[in-house]
């Protein structure tokens, strides 16, 4: 097993990788962009590294941020639990849980998690060193979410923000619109199974919680890949109501039922055998009709776990940082906008983060 693990972090390797990255003058000298991700030199740790490393600080449990096989992991208790549920023994050699708003000092660097509102356990990383405060947003949203703590803006000198929906065409309508759409369709087509593609971690549980809030108390059926994470949410005190596994033999009985599955399952053999299925998908991407149509979605549900354009710009104003770095997503537009309000801004190309739900 040991031999198959990706390479351990090697300082020489880091130096070599740096040559390929564009220089970013907005980063303080103690933070560096490397091939593995953002590297805090004095603290000796990476934030959300793309490969297994010696010390990793993890913002949240999605697989493109929380990889398996690190030696030491620092994350919120919920994120630690998610990593353990997903990776088992490979979650990391030592897993250190740091609740939000507590400070952990690592070799002169202060590290603190602050809720990011993205999924259960998701956090921003607040780093302070040499009189400078840097906030790494991780993935975040500003909208109320019954399954996690809300985002708190932290004033800082440098804000490193995601930009998944960093174009002004992305302005997500209220969640109630999507929930109502799904329930209306269920009424209109009581003889059709409603297959809803939703990311297994976060989106699925949020959609269930939103349906419950809307008074829908029927059994919600799950693809096998969702069961463990729904159990984990419930164990962590998020009520999800009556859930049941939709096993192969039950597909034919799913007329008029809601069945949640990972988006990839919609186009897979798994989706065969349901009675005249309505293909739905819960994602911020569903706002662009062509995107939804490309994926063969009949019922697009705009529910996003990422900040939309208005939330992104509002957040940049809220944190009041004179410098902003924009990472994974549509960087160009947000950089352009930030510069327009007098903020120093650049794109920071962190590689390896996936589109939501892809």
């Amino acid at each position: 097993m040991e031999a198959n693990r990706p390479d351990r972090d090697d300082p020489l390797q880091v130096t070599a990788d740096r040559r390929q990255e564009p220089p970013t003058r907005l980063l303080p000298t103690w933070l560096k962009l490397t091939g593995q991700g953002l590297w805090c030199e004095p603290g000796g740790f990476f934030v959300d590294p793309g490969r297994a490393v010696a010390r990793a600080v993890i913002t949240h449990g999605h697989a493109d941020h929380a990889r398996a096989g690190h030696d030491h992991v620092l994350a919120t208790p919920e994120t630690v639990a998610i990593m353990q549920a997903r990776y088992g023994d490979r979650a990391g050699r030592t897993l250190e849980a740091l609740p939000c708003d507590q400070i952990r000092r690592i070799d002169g660097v202060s590290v603190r998690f602050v809720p990011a509102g993205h999924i259960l356990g998701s956090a921003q990383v607040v780093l302070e060193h040499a009189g400078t405060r840097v906030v790494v947003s991780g993935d975040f949203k500003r909208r109320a979410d019954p399954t996690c703590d809300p985002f708190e803006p932290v004033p800082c000198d440098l804000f490193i923000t995601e930009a998944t929906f960093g174009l002004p065409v992305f302005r997500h309508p209220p969640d109630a619109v999507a929930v109502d759409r799904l329930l209306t369709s269920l009424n209109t087509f009581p003889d059709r199974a409603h297959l809803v593609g939703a990311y297994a971690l976060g989106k699925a549980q949020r959609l269930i919680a939103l349906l419950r809030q809307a008074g829908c108390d029927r059994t919600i059926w799950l693809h096998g890949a969702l069961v463990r994470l729904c159990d984990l949410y419930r164990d962590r005190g998020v009520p999800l109501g009556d859930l049941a596994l939709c096993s192969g033999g039950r597909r034919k009985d799913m007329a008029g039922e809601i069945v949640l599955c990972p988006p990839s399952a919609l186009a897979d053999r798994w989706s065969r055998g349901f009675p005249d299925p309505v293909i739905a998908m819960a994602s911020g991407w569903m706002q662009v009709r062509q995107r939804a149509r490309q994926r063969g979605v009949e019922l697009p549900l705009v529910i996003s776990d990422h900040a939309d354009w208005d939330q992104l710009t509002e957040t940049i104003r809220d944190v009041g940082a004179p410098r902003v770095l924009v990472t994974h997503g549509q960087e160009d537009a947000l950089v352009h906008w930030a510069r327009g309000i007098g903020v120093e801004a650049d794109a920071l190309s962190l590689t390896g983060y996936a589109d939501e739900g892809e």
Partner: protein
Amino acid sequence: MKAFAALLDALAFAPQRNAKLRLLQRYFRETPDPDRGYGLAALTGTLTFPHAKPALIRSLVGTRTDPVLFALSYDYVGDLAETAALLWPAEGEASTPPPLARVVATLGCADKAQLPGQVTAFLDALDESGRFALLKLITGGLRVGVSARLAKTALAELGSVDVAEIEELWHGLKPPYGELFAWLEGRGARPTGHHGLGFRPMMLATSLAEAELDALDPADFAAEWKWDGIRVQVTARGGEARLWSRTGEDITRAFPDVVARMTFDAVLDGELLVVRDGVVAPFNHLQQRLGRKTVGAKRLNEYPAAIMVYDLLMENGEDLRPRPMEQRRRRLEAWTRQLSLPQVALSPLVAFSTWDDLAGMRAAARDDGIEGLMLKRWDSDYVPGRPKGPWFKWKRAPLTVDCVLMYARRGHGRRSSFYSDYTFGCWQEDNGVGRALVPVGKAYFGFTDAELAELDRWVRAHTMERYGPVRAVRPELVLEIACDSVHPSARHKSGLAMRFPRVQRIRWDKPAGEADTVEALRALIARV
């Protein structure tokens, strides 16, 4: 406007025809006049606005948004109406959205100076789907997968009438179609329309299965060549003439050479072809004339169009459709004899006495302009639609080529989880270095559901790379592809294009190395 916007949104995502029909019917049933009539007009493409054009949208968006942000957004979304609808930063209090009828009246108004202010006010009053609907009215082309025919079919089912009746009336009606809805709902008389220049729904043939011939008496049938053009109808009266496609689209303006000097009073059924010095050119010549709104002198000259007529539906106001084919044919022959228009010719009958005779002639016909034979019962009335029995098409045996499967794409609707669209290639010498596969076409039908499941399994097991919904597969499976003809094409890497390609057989047994070469395929190009 709200109902129309909701309809467009729902139609855009409804994958199947039946679902679209249900949505259309609900809209027509539940939306009051005159809004539903304007909705129908928008769906059938009968609305045009003299001054409300896409440039107006760009300039309005420019007044409210940063041009860089707009450009980046447009680049991402790829559709002007949708980008502007999503991006529009509404100002002022939300107000009651305007009814569709008022929007249409405003967009159609002749006062160009007032338009920007009025459209801005609409954009501010509407939500995102409302803005999308409004802007789609301006850009034209709703692109929600609804043809004029489908909209009429929904209407027909709503009023329990035949869609042919609606087609028949259609060209005498105008938005917002109050009379039509009143009739469909049993509140009014059947609109009279105007019958002179209107499109008459066509009678279509079914494909002949050769086994069926045994049960048919050759004496009951007339045979004609099946021309490789497009089916059209000419309606002429009072010195005016119109040319209609099979689905009732008015294509008159693209074919001035065909309708020139048509001063007669008649409705004709025939085939549109490119003909030079009496010789019918291959179909791809006709393609140079299709899909255009208007046509330039050069194209008219290089690709002269003509009609081969084979039926006479009306003559001097007399409806011949209830008369048998035999009588209509006699009238048509007499009618064409006294006509002297070079662009109109009579499609000849093919004389035969036994089916074997006819089969021999069909096999021997290698003429470029001929696709096969038509069989029509002498006693058949001209009835709209595709009744089984009176008319048959008996196509020439297809060309077949052995190709290698290269890429597979996931299908849609019922096939959404299956790799059902196939790109296949033939071998080409690669500068003496070796042979490489060059894509020569795509096919997505011709196989059974069981074969589809097998192909899907094969594709999943032989994937080399994935590009979104497309998989590149190992070049190991031979598909026998049938096509009607092969044409030179500058747009394809192989330099040729197949007409109507379909999967004839899956050659599980054949080694890919023995598939055909591009050279062999090129040899099948119709001699021009």
